[in-house]
């Protein structure tokens, strides 16, 4: 295997070439160079360990198929075998993105919860699209994500390991992130092990502690690989498992999760309790799918409203009776809410209803309606979608709300969003 000198021209399988400008860094698998490709700067990952042709073919196949979403630093061209090795060209990581490890170390933090929701949604949606293609990512850990703390935009790197689900390409992962059956050496990575790792990453981004590192983890003085098998294998215990308190977060050490766990709605707690239940730890089929995670985060985003009393943001869950504002501590007066499909959306001023909540639309960011206040101080819904809504009044009367028009956010109204979901304001 040879390293590349500055100025070396590297031939690509697409018939084009790129030219090495300088080394950017190196890891266990290879060296990353800054290259000129078609007059622009890109990164070239150049392997320093030997990989079989099957690995290169897989890389080429992925490259041809293109990135599942814009969140992947995906191979855009493959460098054919030359100078004793091969590699691939990808986009450079833009400025302003931080590795997930920096969030764990509190050296980077989200500018707002909205940025955090966005990061979580981009992760769920990115992997959902990747899985839809029959692929799996394999080795998800704190080194694979670059996240913009201001916007929550995510870039997933190291996509050369992405392979068809069920095909064992011999990839190893990192304990604490990988699914228990991999830690126990029973399985190769697959779609279901990705689900597990994804839940670990989401938990870390939201609660800023690790899901299996509590009292039990601390009581192990020396973290040897053998100890890691016990702590992260099938005997792993979720730090917030309601049925097992042996691995609880420890005050003074795991302060982030101790502070944050009660701040988020029970709805989110339930999702993590299910994702890390003993059943889900041991049975891959019982894990939460990326589609479900997307739904959980979309719902969470909707529950984050402006407190009508103090004006600060808090969570309001229309399905529970006692909602206290996280900032002013007072009980939030009941907020009229829209119940549509899987979602409950409190209709506080400024809240948005997204197209993905009212019709089967993958874009989680496209707004269908916004809650606005009229001159009389009454709250209403403004139709910002491209379809008319049919509104049924309690009297049985039917009205049409065209795009751009508004309607009162009044209890008892039923709304049919185009040809799609019907929701009810309660």
């Amino acid at each position: 295997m040879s390293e590349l000198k500055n100025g070396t021209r590297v031939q690509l399988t697409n018939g084009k070439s790129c030219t090495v400008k300088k080394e950017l860094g190196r890891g266990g698998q290879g060296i990353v160079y800054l290259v000129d490709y078609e007059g622009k700067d890109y990164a070239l990952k150049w392997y320093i360990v030997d990989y079989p042709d099957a690995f290169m073919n897989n890389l080429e196949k992925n490259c041809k198929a293109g990135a599942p979403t814009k969140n992947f630093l995906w191979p855009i061209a493959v460098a054919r075998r030359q100078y004793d090795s091969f590699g691939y060209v990808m986009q450079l990581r833009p400025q302003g993105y931080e590795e997930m490890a920096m969030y764990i170390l509190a050296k980077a933090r989200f500018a707002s919860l909205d940025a955090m929701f966005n990061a979580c949604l981009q992760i769920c949606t990115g992997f959902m699209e990747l899985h839809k293609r029959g692929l799996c990512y394999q080795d998800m850990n704190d080194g694979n994500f670059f996240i913009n703390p201001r916007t929550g935009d995510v870039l997933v790197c190291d996509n050369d390991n992405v392979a068809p689900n069920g095909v064992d390409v011999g990839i190893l992962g990192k304990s604490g992130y990988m699914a228990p059956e991999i830690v126990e050496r029973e399985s190769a990575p697959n779609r279901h092990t990705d689900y597990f790792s994804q839940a670990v990453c989401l938990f870390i981004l939201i609660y800023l502690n690790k899901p299996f590192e509590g009292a039990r983890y601390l009581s192990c003085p020396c973290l040897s690989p053998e100890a890691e098998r016990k702590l992260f294998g099938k005997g792993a215990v979720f730090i917030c498992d309601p049925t097992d308190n042996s691995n609880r977060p420890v005050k003074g050490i795991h302060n982030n999760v101790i502070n944050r766990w009660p701040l988020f709605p029970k709805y989110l707690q339930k999702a993590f309790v299910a994702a890390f239940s003993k059943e889900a730890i041991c049975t891959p089929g019982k894990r939460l799918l990326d589609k479900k995670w997307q739904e959980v985060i979309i719902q969470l985003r909707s529950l984050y409203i402006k407190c009508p009393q103090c004006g600060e943001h808090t969570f309001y869950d229309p399905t529970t009776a006692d909602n206290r504002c996280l900032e002013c501590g007072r009980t939030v007066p009941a907020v009229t809410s829209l119940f549509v499909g899987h979602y409950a959306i409190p209709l506080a001023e400024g809240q948005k209803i997204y197209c993905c909540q009212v019709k089967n639309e993958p874009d989680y960011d496209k707004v269908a309606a916004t809650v606005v206040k009229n001159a009389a101080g009454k709250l209403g819904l403004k139709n910002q979608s491209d379809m008319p809504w049919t509104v049924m009044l309690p009297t049985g009367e039917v009205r049409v709300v065209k795009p751009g028009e508004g309607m009162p956010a009044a209890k008892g109204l039923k709304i049919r969003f185009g040809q799609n979901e019907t929701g009810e304001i309660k």
Partner: protein
Amino acid sequence: MSSFDKVEAAPRRVMTLIFLVDTSGSMEGEKMGQVNDTIENILPEIGEISSTNADAEIKIAVLEFSSGIEWMYPEPISAEDFTWQNLEAGGLTSMGEAFKELNTKLSQTTGFMKEAAGSFAPAIIMLSDGEPTQEYKHALEKLKANNWFKAAIKVAISIGDDGNKDILVDFTGTKEAVYTVHNREQLKKIIRFVSVTASQVASSHSSVGKEAPTTKQEEFVDKMNDADNTSDTFDGVDIGDETTNAGTDDWGTF
């Protein structure tokens, strides 16, 4: 100030990187100077690995042995804050005493392994250019029975042909983690490569999977072997009991 603003760094374990440095008379001159210069210069790199690592903080401890033994500092110090103090060579090679002292410190109750958030097994790098001048076997046997030592990454660098490779192999537990260097350039490259690789492997959660190595020592050796096949770092360096480059020692004049 929102309720979500109160955030602190998640706890990390500590991985102690221990340098065991022979400072006997035979190290005097170029060898000692080179060791001082090389380790001092890789500390910022180790500090960088530590500062971006969410699994563990890396601390450093240095034990020198000549006619006696001495720690550079009484407790391990964070790699980011570590200031190297020049080691000076002179005297005998009290390797046995060094083993005994290391055994004492590799303990949760009497030694360095008492971190609140727990520890990873340490990485221990021994540098020597000669033979022990005292009985060492008993101390080494006791050290080898220490559970922290068993789980540790152990590497030995023999500086020149005069190092006792049998003892070094016994110390590391594997031939594959003993490197014999024959000149300044090799010494520099190997110290750097070994320190960085051992730090990375020892301070991270294990690699897992069907074909994963079962110990950190194995994972370290695998990485070193990969590098041996793909880079020129190991050119001219003998690994284990190899003698391919024996007789090529060139330490300059002093």
